[in-house]
């Protein structure tokens, strides 16, 4: 039994952690929060430069050629440091879709530019929920029409979009594409909407295509997002814990009150339960196991729960100061919700999980 990451993988994580602590500071993340930047260029450059963001991409396309396990740990650090970068949109979703579903020519055309930082990619690969009356994207074999919500869409150059049964590649500078930045509740990972009027696009035409490709990429992203959520959840608990040791009330450290001790023990329990499922997801993703839909959904649901609770309760443990703009608590509160809804809410994933559990028990 070796249900853990290797020492080498942990070393890489420590390097990324060190870099992000110096780069993705609160001040840097807040440049995006305040609308001064669409993403942190310096953080993104470093993550690409050290081969962290591209850990799972093959070396022949400029990736680090390590693997999914390494990328999981990179994701955990990105979450811990609230990295304001197009990592989920560009790597977990877009680059993965290209890598798994692109033709050789499509991979050659885009992956080296993405890994070199010359091009930012994003993706919209469907999901269960919806609210705004949309103009669903339609692909006729050569052109895409309709409107699409794109994470990091303001900064992106190219997008992978699910349109009906196809997954297509669209250059956002193409004729017929207009782009509109949108107000978002987590401006450190902003959204934009594009409208396409018969914009030239091409279907991804590799081994895996269409809905099967979208499902596989969503499952992989669920695992990677779970690690990002774990990092954020652990950081939220750490911050609350440290504050509870500094802050005094009624003549005692507030962290000595059993109500807060038990609350923090419960957060830790939720975090570690999610970590166990995230590890299992990482195993399934890295070994291409048939359990991936099950393990990914379990990682998704438990990590979404964990980060949501940790972010909410971190504010509560801080008390009034936690409700101020100056404290970073609300950055986690916003990020937890962004990550928890990016590829569909926990409710949709709980349904996928139940289906997988019922199938497995048969």
């Amino acid at each position, binding site marked *: *039994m*070796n249900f*853990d990451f290797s020492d080498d993988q942990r070393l890489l994580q420590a390097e990324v952690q060190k870099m992000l602590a110096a780069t993705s500071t609160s001040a840097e993340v807040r440049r995006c929060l305040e609308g001064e930047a669409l993403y942190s260029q310096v953080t993104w450059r470093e993550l690409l430069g050290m081969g962290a963001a591209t850990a799972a991409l093959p070396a022949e396309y400029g990736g680090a050629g390590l693997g999914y396990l390494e990328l999981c740990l990179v994701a955990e650090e990105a979450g811990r440091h609230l990295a304001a970068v197009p990592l989920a949109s560009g790597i977990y979703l877009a680059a993965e879709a290209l890598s798994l579903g692109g033709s050789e020519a499509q991979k050659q055309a885009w992956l080296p530019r993405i890994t070199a930082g010359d091009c930012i990619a994003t993706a919209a690969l469907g999901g269960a929920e919806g609210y705004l009356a949309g103009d669903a994207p339609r692909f006729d074999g050569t052109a895409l029409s309709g409107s699409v919500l794109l994470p990091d869409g303001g900064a992106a150059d190219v997008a992978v979009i699910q349109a009906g049964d196809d997954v297509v590649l669209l250059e956002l500078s193409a004729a017929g594409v207009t782009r509109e930045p949108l107000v978002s509740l987590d401006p450190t990972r902003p959204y934009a909407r594009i409208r396409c009027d018969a914009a030239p696009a091409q279907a991804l035409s590799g081994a895996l295509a269409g809905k099967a490709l979208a499902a596989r990429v969503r499952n992989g992203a669920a695992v990677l997002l779970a690690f990002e959520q774990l990092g954020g959840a652990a950081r939220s608990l750490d911050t609350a814990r440290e504050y509870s040791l500094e802050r005094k009330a009624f003549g005692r450290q507030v962290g000595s009150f059993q109500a807060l*001790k038990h609350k923090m*023990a419960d957060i830790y329990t939720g975090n570690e339960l999610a970590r166990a499922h995230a590890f299992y997801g990482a195993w399934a993703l890295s*070994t291409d196991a048939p359990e991936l839909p099950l393990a990914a959904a*379990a990682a998704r649901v438990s990590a979404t729960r964990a980060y949501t609770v940790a972010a909410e309760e971190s504010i509560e443990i801080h008390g009034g100061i936690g409700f101020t703009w100056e404290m970073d608590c609300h950055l986690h509160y916003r990020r937890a919700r962004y990550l928890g809804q990016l590829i569909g809410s926990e409710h949709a994933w709980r*349904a996928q999980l139940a289906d997988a559990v019922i199938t497995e028990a048969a």
Partner: protein
Amino acid sequence: MDFKDTAEEAAFRAEVRAWLEANATPRQSAEETFGPDLTEDERVAAAKDWQRKKAEAGYAALTWPKEMGGRGAPPIQQVIYGQEEARFLVPARVFENSLGQCLPTVGAWASPELAAQYLPRGIRGDDIWCQLFSEPAAGSDTGNIRTRAERNGDEWVINGQKVWTSGAHFCDYGILLARSDWDQPKQKGLTMFILDLKADGVDARPIHQMSGEREFCEVFLNDVRIPDTHRLGEVNQGWTVMLSTLMHERMSIGGVLPTTLHETLVKLARNATWNGAPALDNDVVKARIADAYLSQKGVDLIISRGITALSKGQEPGPEMSILKLVAARGILDIASFAMELAGPEGMLGHEVLGDEYAFMQMMWLTAPGIRIAGGTEEIMRNTVAEYVLGLPREARTDKHVPFRELER
């Protein structure tokens, strides 16, 4: 990252499996129990037989040092043996306290003569041992022990009452923690002894539990004589001895916790209906099945992390401390929902509903006990908060006060 055995582990597993196949009956399902119709005496006799067979094959005390009669194997082999044995119908748990905690404590603290007297018999299954720590006024607060140990020449005279002692009515010996000095603060005036449960003055009475079972006893001790040679550790050092006993528990990770109740729940849901339609098509039911998986598989995966540490020769990490919190609450929630699936009929006994409900109903009736045994959920949360998160310890007003002066 993988779930595979190392070459050595695989070889040991194959050896164990071959032996079990030759000596025991494979289990047909996770819910099947050993000899459900046996009387207690028959169960205990079967357990002693099984223990002797294990001892003869060298599996009874795998991780004990060779000089104590063990095999000197790494802890991972105990885990592998446990995993394999769980696939067979054998009388488990009767010797859990004997081999897991009591005898290792005897081996660590008794004189060589005493160890030679008790360890071989214990390994062979001739004697069953129990732990006599808890008392009516010493549950979560174990240091509040009032059972009195008074020195009288070469003997000690014991008076008091113990409680929640597993199987004391059929046990032969126990390790007993008693108060030897009332002028010391509570944890500093305790001494550990070997108690002969068949001695004069020992009266073990089974407790009728809310589940209907009688697994635990209260043990009354009236002028029980224990020779000083049967003391474990120094006088007034009993607390240290007890901590060493509990250390042995840390290596036996999660062995008895169920991890497949979500599958049982799916089986029951398959037969149930909701507004005339199959319950499995209902979103509420599906969400509960997903949550059942999260807690049950979560327990399994956390155990896998612990086993990984053992496999690498390391100690399991702090995440082990959440196991019981996740498991106990999960069992209660899953068993409750299993009953809810049948609506008002869910209150009917499995004798009426069907055998498939027997295990869940037993889980529902034992879950409150699981939440308490080995530390209540509230104590477990304190443990996580203090030992894992490093938060301040609970205020203690009794730590430095002579026990005699504490309020009763």
